[in-house]
């Protein structure tokens, strides 16, 4: 009995410590708000097996956007100001959880719109439900091509999700084919012939690798693809295999995210595979987080990486501000998915204001389709939607409800410990900052 009471008192103590306050977030009130507020659901991964780091940044950005909008007196509908209220849901990176959370958003929280989503599997699994319930949705990070092909294309043998021809899902992140084409175009411009692709075996890595492989092979390059499991730490055996191949590869392209990408790139550099004079190192866009990158990949100088999102030298005021706030919070450069999530909330708010409603799904979708807004990542608009329903021959289905202009660039570090804000943009040529499309190791532009 004594033991049990000890146990209970310890539990109670723990519960008490658990309940200690850590501070609450609420905007100040110089604006007059209506009693109702606009509820926007943010579906992000906040627990394993999801990509927690991504979810944390996205949830921060979504909340930040709401705070900024509210500070500017919220969304004006029929002359009344409505505040935005964010409900964050944890998808855990799993389709099943994602569906459950979306259902909660719709039925319990009664959200008016949804944004977020990091993992494509979650995006694919939740789109149908969002459509059926007529919830305007702007996804900010899933890359799978099919995510925006909703309404145009069937996937997985399921019937088209929408009965009356309206579909509610938009995407402001690039489709993986859009990213792949930039990387491949750049490398082909440099004249590479022998390519090694190292891809993670996930819903992001595999389609992206397949897409790039097809493009390289169409251009006559030889490609070796190597798949790795996320969470692997030691890549030396497989890297030795690359090193032993009869022909030195012209480029090693890493399509691996997170800490696994850092491990891989660092070991690649340490073994002297890439970047070298013969071999170009192309690592993943996570390298843009320069603080983390240099901490984890000290030898990664002269690695190039693809960057989604506006390039630092073209940062708008919004982007600069967002970046500063992000740096204060996480001590790193703001990643594209945080910018996209931030912008997505603004796009929704703008759509509602122009539709003059926060609940009429069809009207809001129609308004979002005609979006024309300058935000942190640039000018947002949607080329194909119900306002312009016919995709010309040759235009891929994913261009439906897809922001056509996510800036995808190739960047390259050329100094040890360089901030990604100073890194060189090397491709496409229009964005070039240092007048060169590749900086050979050991040189500077």
């Amino acid at each position: 009995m004594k033991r049990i009471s000890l146990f209970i008192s310890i539990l109670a103590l723990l519960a008490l410590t658990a309940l200690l306050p850590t501070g609450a977030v609420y905007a100040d009130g110089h604006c007059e708000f209506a009693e109702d507020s606009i509820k926007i659901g943010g579906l992000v991964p906040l627990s394993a097996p999801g990509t927690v780091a991504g979810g944390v940044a996205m949830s921060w950005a979504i909340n930040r956007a709401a705070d900024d909008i509210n500070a500017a007196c919220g969304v004006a509908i029929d002359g009344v100001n409505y505040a935005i209220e964010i409900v964050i849901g944890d998808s855990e990176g799993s389709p099943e959880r994602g569906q459950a959370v979306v259902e909660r958003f719709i039925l319990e929280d009664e959200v008016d719109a949804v944004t977020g989503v990091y993992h494509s599997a979650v995006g694919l699994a939740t789109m149908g439900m969002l459509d059926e319930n007529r919830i305007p949705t702007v996804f900010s990070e899933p890359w799978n091509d099919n995510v925006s092909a909703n309404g145009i294309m069937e996937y997985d043998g399921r019937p088209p999700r929408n009965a009356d021809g309206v579909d509610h899902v938009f995407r402001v992140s690039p489709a993986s084919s859009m990213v792949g084409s930039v990387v491949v175009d750049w490398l082909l411009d440099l004249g590479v012939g022998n390519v090694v692709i190292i891809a993670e075996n996930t819903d992001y890595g595999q389609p992206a690798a397949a897409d790039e492989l097809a493009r390289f092979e169409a251009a006559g390059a030889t490609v070796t693809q190597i798949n790795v499991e996320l969470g692997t730490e030691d890549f030396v055996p497989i890297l030795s295999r690359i090193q032993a191949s009869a022909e030195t590869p012209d480029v090693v392209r890493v399509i691996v995210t997170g800490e696994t990408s850092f491990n891989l790139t660092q070991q690649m550099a340490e073994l002297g595979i890439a970047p070298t004079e013969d071999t170009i190192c192309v690592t993943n866009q996570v390298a843009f987080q320069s603080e983390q990158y240099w901490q984890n990949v000290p030898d990664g100088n002269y690695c190039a990486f693809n960057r989604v999102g506006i390039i630092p030298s073209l940062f708008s005021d919004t982007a600069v501000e967002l970046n500063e706030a992000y740096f204060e919070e996480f001590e790193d450069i703001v990643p594209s998915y945080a910018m996209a999530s931030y912008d997505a909330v603004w796009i929704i708010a703008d759509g509602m204001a122009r539709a003059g409603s926060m609940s009429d799904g069809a009207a809001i979708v129609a308004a979002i389709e005609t979006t024309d807004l300058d935000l942190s990542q640039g000018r947002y608009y949607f080329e194909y939607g119900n306002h312009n329903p016919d995709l010309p021959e040759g235009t891929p289905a994913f261009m439906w409800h897809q922001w056509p202009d996510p800036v995808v660039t190739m960047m390259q570090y050329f100094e040890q410990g360089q901030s990604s804000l100073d890194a060189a943009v090397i491709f496409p040529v229009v964005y070039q900052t240092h007048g060169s499309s590749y900086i050979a190791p050991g040189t500077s532009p």
Partner: protein
Amino acid sequence: MVIEDTLFVLWLLLAGPLWATVGLFILPGVNQGRGEKEQVPATTLKIAGLVGGFALGPVGLGLFYLEPTLIRRSSLTLGVVLTVFLSSQVLARIVDPNLPAALWLLLAGPLWAALAAYFIPRHYRDLEADDQNALTAAALGGFAIGPLIFGLMWKTVPKVNRDWMISLGALGAWQIYALFAIQNPANPCVALPYAATYLTQQTANGIVIGCIYSLMAVGLTLIYSVQGVVSFAHGQLYMVGGYFSFYFLLHAGNVLSELTGTEVSVNPIWGIPVAAVIVFVMGAIFERVFLKPMHEGLIERVSEYAILITFGFGFFLEYTTLAIAGPFPQKTDRFIQIRRFTLDRFHFNDEVFFGPIHIIGDRAFAMVVGVALIFALLYFLQRSWTGRALRATSQDRQAAAVTGINPTNMNTLSFAMGSMLAAMSGAALIPIFNWVPWVGAEMVGRSYVIVVLGGLGSVPGALAGGIIVGIVEALGAGCHPDPSRGAAYKEAFALVIFALVLLLKPTGLFGREQH
């Protein structure tokens, strides 16, 4: 087409064994009408009958019958290897030309292994023969030489020694290697002239990383040898070890920088003792509170409790670290400023015939640290009074208690030291791999493989096991015929070995036989 193929398969399945049976009975007839000195041992003749009949059918039997001098061990071995190898290839191609030969390996090899592993030890026991290692040999043999293992082991029931297992294991490994070669001749493991360099490089990779793995596994084995408990919190202790080192170095660096006014970074080697001390204390406290009652008989079903309680501790550690340190990857500075050590090319007649071999500098350093710590531990266990007391407790608890050793203290010491070793390997690896709170999961899985392979409770076994696992992973990832899958299956190779060792020889390579 289908019918012909089926017939051919049937011939392979039936005719080979058929002729082997014929050979088994006919060939001993060679001895008839021969002088005392010309007699060939009956066993040899039987084996020759089996092998000759299976491999070459009537032709082989005829040759052996007419010219018994051909029956030599070397020719028999060669016959076995050739038979198995060719027939497996033919079989795989015939059944379906599109089927990869690996499928044969996946199906036929293990199938025969399972059959042999089931029947042969039973047969040994029925005949009341010494069945020690019979199971292992039967399984290895079934895998390596298929049905022939029945011929070898059924009739004569030989006593199985280590040589048997080594040769059968080597034969099986050689088959896998040969299959790789046939599967993809461009595979760097087999493509001459670089194969030698490549294999050396991969073996070196394996040894370096294996020694580092060992350090963690040694902790696990130490706890097991004294307490009989497998710690399921080991991976998390390894993880927190790395984090303690990281935060210590961070703060020490900041403090020193402030004092001296210049940017100072502390060498991560100093993180190792710090992490060791902190986790030692943590381990000791956990042992006192949660494991001690177990040894005092206050707990029902001890083994289950031990799994669950350590498991729960690990669960707590992992999520607490996640809540505090966050999910972002961290890494410390490096140990030494040398990127890699390179053994340069060897030339012969102006042609490169060997080299270069690369080893990453920090890893080599961590390997040295790991091996030094393991030897320090061995020295401690062999020479110091406390170490001897630990060993005595692990061998016989009651007897140790009689000689004045306090087993309770030894329990606490073993758990604390085991945890400390995990933390030290964490602190030794954080300069090499980047660190996230779930980093322990992959590593601890590997430690289980190592300790089981080396024999739970054996420190030298853990070292050997670590090196073997390192090499298997390196060669597996390096030689897998499909380069796109080799790396993804890297972890799986060790797990397969693990499952096999658990099934065939749970005492491992160096484990004590339990009575």
